[in-house]
């Protein structure tokens, strides 16, 4: 309970938390309140914001706000699952390699390097020919599968550094159980790194998912925020049309706001797990 209180007391974390709750609410309730109408109305294309269309219209005269709301569900799920799978894999590989060392470390590091270096594109192209991905969990897994090596490497070196540190050595001397050392001493020290990485992967997932859509691995959804940006740039040329600023900016602002909330919350959590930061603040 005190953890939650600390979180709430931290103004920035609170902001992030509220923001995320807001996004979640939009994703949960929005699509029910604002039905998606995909039917084009070319005479109304690229309208600036008005009372009927709060965020204007897209290249085919459809409401931008409705698309944004409907896209939020996908975006939140895909970002979350991608981040989740990437962090999970990275923790498993990075911690094992860092803690155990020796030949296991060697093999895992090599594996990480292979994953870091084998080009994604051919793999995705082959996958696209073999399977059709529809649900966000599989989508997240496919994306997460390529996002973990960076974090795993950082975790490994971080763990190796921490292992030699005084407080871990002290704990070891005190014959505390490895689980205790892991959860009480190591993990808190890794939280900032994991947090930053989770956010980075979750964010990249939006851009990368567009690339995956363009490989045909998943169906095109024009209300996906990343895809909205792509449509604005390439297919419809909104980037070059001053009148279309609202259509270009809306998904951009939404993505930025979403991530901003994530980052604020993450920094709040950092302070939560690292009491020293609280002391200074």
């Amino acid at each position, binding site marked *: 309970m005190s953890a939650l209180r600390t979180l709430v007391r931290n103004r*920035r974390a609170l902001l992030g938390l509220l923001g995320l709750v807001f996004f979640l609410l939009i994703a949960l309730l929005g699509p029910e309140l604002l039905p998606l109408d995909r039917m084009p109305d070319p005479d109304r294309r690229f309208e600036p914001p008005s009372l009927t269309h709060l965020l204007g219209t897209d290249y085919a005269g459809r409401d931008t706000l409705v698309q944004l709301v409907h896209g939020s569900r996908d975006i939140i799920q895909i970002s979350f699952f991608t981040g989740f799978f990437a962090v999970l894999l990275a923790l498993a590989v990075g911690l094992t390699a860092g803690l155990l060392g020796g030949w296991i470390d*060697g093999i895992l*590091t*090599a594996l990480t*390097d*292979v994953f*870091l*270096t*084998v*080009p994604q*594109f*051919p*793999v995705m*192209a*082959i996958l*696209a*020919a073999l399977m059709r991905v529809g649900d966000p969990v599989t989508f997240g897994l496919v994306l997460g599968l390529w996002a973990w090596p*960076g974090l795993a*490497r*950082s975790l490994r*070196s*971080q763990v*190796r*550094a921490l292992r*030699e*540190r005084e407080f871990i050595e002290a704990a070891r001397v005190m014959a505390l159980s490895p689980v205790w050392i892991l959860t009480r001493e190591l993990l808190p*020290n890794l939280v*900032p*790194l994991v*947090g*930053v990485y989770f956010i*980075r992967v979750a*964010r*990249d997932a*939006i*851009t990368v998912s*567009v690339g995956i859509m363009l490989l045909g691995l998943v169906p095109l959804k024009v209300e996906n925020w*990343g895809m909205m*940006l*792509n449509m604005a*740039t390439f297919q419809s040329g909104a*980037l*070059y049309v001053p009148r279309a600023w609202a259509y270009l900016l809306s998904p*951009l602002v939404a*993505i*930025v706001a979403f*991530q*901003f909330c994530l*980052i*604020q919350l993450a920094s709040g959590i*950092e302070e939560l797990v*690292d009491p*020293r*930061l609280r002391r*200074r*603040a």
Partner: protein
Amino acid sequence: MARRLLTSLATIAVAMTLTFVLIRQMPGDIVHQWAVQLQMQQGISYEQARLQAAAMINYNPDIGLFEQYFSYLGGLLTGNLGLSLTYRIPVSLVLVQALPWTLLVTTLATFLSFVVGCGLGLLGALRRQSLLDPLLTLYATLSQALPPFLIGLLLLLVFGIGLEWLPMRGNYTPDVEPGLNLPFLLDVALHAVMPVMAFALPAMGDWALAMKASATSVLGEDYLHVARARGLKPRRILLRYLGRNSMMPLVPSLATALGSALGGSMLVEAIFGYPGLGFFLAQAIDRRDYPLMQGIFLISTMGVVLFNLAGELVLARLDPRLRR
């Protein structure tokens, strides 16, 4: 040490083999790619187009995968990367000509973004309650939320079309004589500005965030208090203790970034028509030019693995505790 080097070599070998198999399993082979294009242009039947395509690139499709692999390995041992199927010139020639342009842009961008980003991140960690911190976060999120192609096109829009300050595409104009002369070098520098910015602008925010996180955790460490108690100059503490120790966790990422920078970027180089490895990779993928693809992937694989190794070594030197 020798063992680490050996593991790295093994990694490269495994990655190379995997890549070799993977790219040949992609749907649509090289003759097919050309044939479809010809079919479209000339309205001929597919069989006819295939014949024509095979003649165009003089390709013998009847060689098995194993045979190809072993002859490739054999070539590799003697430093021969094979002949590009679509360009009919040695792959190594393409690599040698394209790599410098990629290196120019990506290393410049990586260092620039690393130095500036780390500086900003450090400041952000020190002034956690000031306006700088949220501004930094905002910048990082904004620059990262923009997909790379959009950053490139926005740069084009502002500096190329709007202000007309910078040349829009290419590495130099045909008006200058390539060589060691001032007009050429200036021209190259001007042409590199936008690609460098397209790489550096988003990376900067990333480094800043990572540095901030790292510095924040170092700030809580006891030795900083000790150092302060010892009466060391604040600036010395800042750079020697805080800066150095918070940069350490970033070294692996920097190594990875530098390593993968060797492969260039397909998107950025395509937008700016910049003749680096990324540009050729995109072409090679489109046309299923296997040897060329393989060569470029090999370079980026080697880049990533070797730079990661180097990163570890540097880290070991920086952190005496790891030397044990």
